[in-house]
């Protein structure tokens, strides 16, 4: 139990998928202009990452390893994750239209997002057990959401400030992201 907690903390803060591993930067910049979209994106990432992490771990363990075709890992993960997201989208649209309205447009955007793919591969490389894989996927997703929401709130404030013309918009966004990444470095050594 304690190990799992440590794993979660390390995934959220120390190895934050965005700020330490620099995966998933496109939605990080693209959907962080407004808090509203940032929250929607964060939810969608949690949703997809947990499902994808779980499913790919199972595919890896019960299919790839069993059939000894581990070299097909990346390509089969792409296929599985893409199908999963499509399936979930259809399911939500029919069964939970409310949730679909909230997550709908973000789901296809992160189909084969590098963060999603990255977490699935990390889970395998680190040779996590099933429970560990689920916890790590959840924690990484929470870390992603945390960074995104933080970043969006900072960008909303930056919008109100006087920014020199050449630095406006994405430029100042990247500078800000760099500074947040620096602050996240201070978590190193915590675990």
């Amino acid at each position, binding site marked *: 139990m304690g190990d799992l907690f440590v794993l979660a903390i390390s995934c959220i803060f120390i190895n934050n998928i965005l700020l330490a591993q620099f995966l998933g930067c496109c939605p990080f910049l693209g959907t962080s202009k407004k808090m509203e979209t940032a929250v929607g994106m964060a939810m969608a990432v949690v949703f997809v990452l947990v499902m994808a992490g779980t499913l790919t771990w199972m595919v890896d363990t019960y299919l790839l390893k069993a059939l*000894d075709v581990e070299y097909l890992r990346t390509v089969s993960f792409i296929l599985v994750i893409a199908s999963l997201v499509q399936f979930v989208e259809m399911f939500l649209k029919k069964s939970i239209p409310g949730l679909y309205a909230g997550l709908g447009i973000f789901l296809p955007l992160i189909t084969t997002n590098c963060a999603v793919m990255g977490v699935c591969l990390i889970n395998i490389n680190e040779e996590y057990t099933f429970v560990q894989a689920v916890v790590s996927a959840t924690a990484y997703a929470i870390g992603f959401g945390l960074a995104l929401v933080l970043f969006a709130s900072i960008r909303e404030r930056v919008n109100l400030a*006087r920014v020199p013309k050449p630095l406006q918009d994405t430029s100042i966004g990247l500078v800000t992201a760099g500074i947040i990444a620096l602050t996240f470095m201070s978590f190193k050594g915590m675990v």
Partner: protein
Amino acid sequence: MIPALLFMLGIGAVCGIVLSLSSKVFYVYEDPRIAQVENNLAAANCGGCGYAGCSAAAEAVVNGLAQPSVCVISNQEGVEAVAKIMGVDAGAAESPLSYNICEGGNRADDKYHYMGISSCKAMAAVFGGKRVCGVGCMGLGDCVKACQFDALEIGPNGYPVVDDDKCVGCGACQLACPKDIIKVTTLSEQLMKFNQTQDALAPCAQTCPAEINIPRYINQLREGKYKEAVQTIRMRNPLPLACGRVCPHPCEDECRRGIEEEAVSINQLKRFVADYEMNSGSRIPIKCAPDTGKKVAVIGGGPAGLSCAFFLRRIGHQVDIFEAMPKLGGIIRYGIPEYRLPKKVLDWEIQGILDLGIKAFCNVRFGVDFGLGSLMASGYEAVLLGVGAWEDYSLGIEGEDLDGCFKGIDFLQRFSRGEKIKLGRTAAVVGGGNSAIDCVRTLLRLGLEKVYIVYRRTRNEMPANEVEIVASEEEGVEFVFLAAPTQVIADDNGKVAQLEYLKMELGEPDASGRRRPVPIEGSETLLDVEMVISAIGQSPDASFKDQDPHPRMTELELTRWNTIDNDPAILQASIPYIFTAGDSATGPALVVDAIGSGRRSARSIDLFLKGEPVEPVKDSLQKKRIPESIFTKVPGLKKTARAKMPEIPVDQRLDSMIEVDLVLPEDAAHKEAERCLNCCRLCYNPDTGFPIAKAN
């Protein structure tokens, strides 16, 4: 190699089968046009259109919320392709446009000084912004930054100016504005907007019962944009020609210039632009929203009915008017004499309303020729009862049915219809309202030698318009004040010979604030007259309620004044699909009141037709004033004389029913428009030393 191929084939097949099965199981119907439209959008998911991704934009286009040109990146070809998918009537979607309500901008005084803040949002967050005005524009241009289409800029006067050609109605500016100054609205929403307590309204616009944006049209007149001025008036008032002639202009009572000197002659300016349109020989096109396919019956073609029909038609409903008289117009045709409102002018104005596609059936009386049952059977989904107030009150004195006695509205309408009425040489008209004055002025034109007005209070308490009283004085009417008729005395042939009245004196003020007249005992006096007309007010004629055999008619409740019982905020009667407006809702009131209530009931009918709850406008101002906008003094004014209304000399008036009041000449109208301070809620243009005033 082979195992890898087999594995990929297998996993691909599984995924494919699962997806195709689930697409069957989880199928949700979607308008096929959404996918087609989406294919023709740029597919960049950039959000530049203001919608969350291309599919959301496509859905908005198909649902009629966005135009085919919604996509920022899409070229002309793409737009045309989308328009084609949506059918030839791609314009069927009612396009919203950005609309700025603040015209004060820099002229509003500052309350605080902010250093270094560059966005309205930040400024609004700290003490609500620099301006004294709580609803005014701060002018830092958050809306301009939010606009992806370059359709907005901060104008020279410090408030945003919208370029309608570039605006796509995406709503980004509205979201960016922290003060609700910039709004993205459709034509229907603008037509159905009512004054609210938080609006940026000049005192005159608060007072106008029709809620016309007076400063805006006067400003347009000043800039020479007469067409636009007429269009501004028509957003609230379908009868500018009639109102420009007969309205007692309550707006002028609240005019800020009027605090220091004579008020701006607002109504003459309205008449000037309205007459300009009529005399220009062509009608200014009136925009209507796309058809909704709903049908409404309007009973009564008076100002209330016409107004309600006009606005319902403009927001896309199909309207038919049913009128008991031979022609439309109601009291303004049959109760207002020719010399105040020529029939030719009225005909022209009403034709313009009918040209919108409104059908009118005249000479049909509700309850006799048709009823609720036949209306429902013909597919009308809502009914407006705007039957007016045509039943004259009687004096309740002995002898008032004698030969030679008439009742005000009855007399006027019989005369208007061309009926030959046997006249005497002298007449007494009882009453002090506009109908009484209309009667005496008509009688004078018919060649009577002596016409009296018998009124139980004094001139100060007369409810008639001041200009009307003055005009009747000029034309030679004789006033008998403080006189209450007690009986009409006949001669040997049974004809009216004398009117007996009691002299009165003024006592304590009554509920209306006017001093109550008290009779003086034994002061009976005789007045030799051959005609007596009583014009002491009217009530609605609700005889249709008993005549219509439809069983639901018994549910229609009337008040003790015979008006149709209704909630004044929504004008819905006791039967949900029946609405009312004008005199039949309130009892006798002004034409402009009827026009205002006609529009209000149009809003309620629209809500009712859409199946939405018919609720009052939130924070509706409805005849109240915004306290902070009512001043006691207006510094910085340079006094200038009010334009005098040109009129025909008295000696030429009495030979015919020719129109007495004339329209202002163009230069006089401009000079009068220059007197307007272009007020808003708090700020206004004083005459001197102010940039906006100078620029104009």
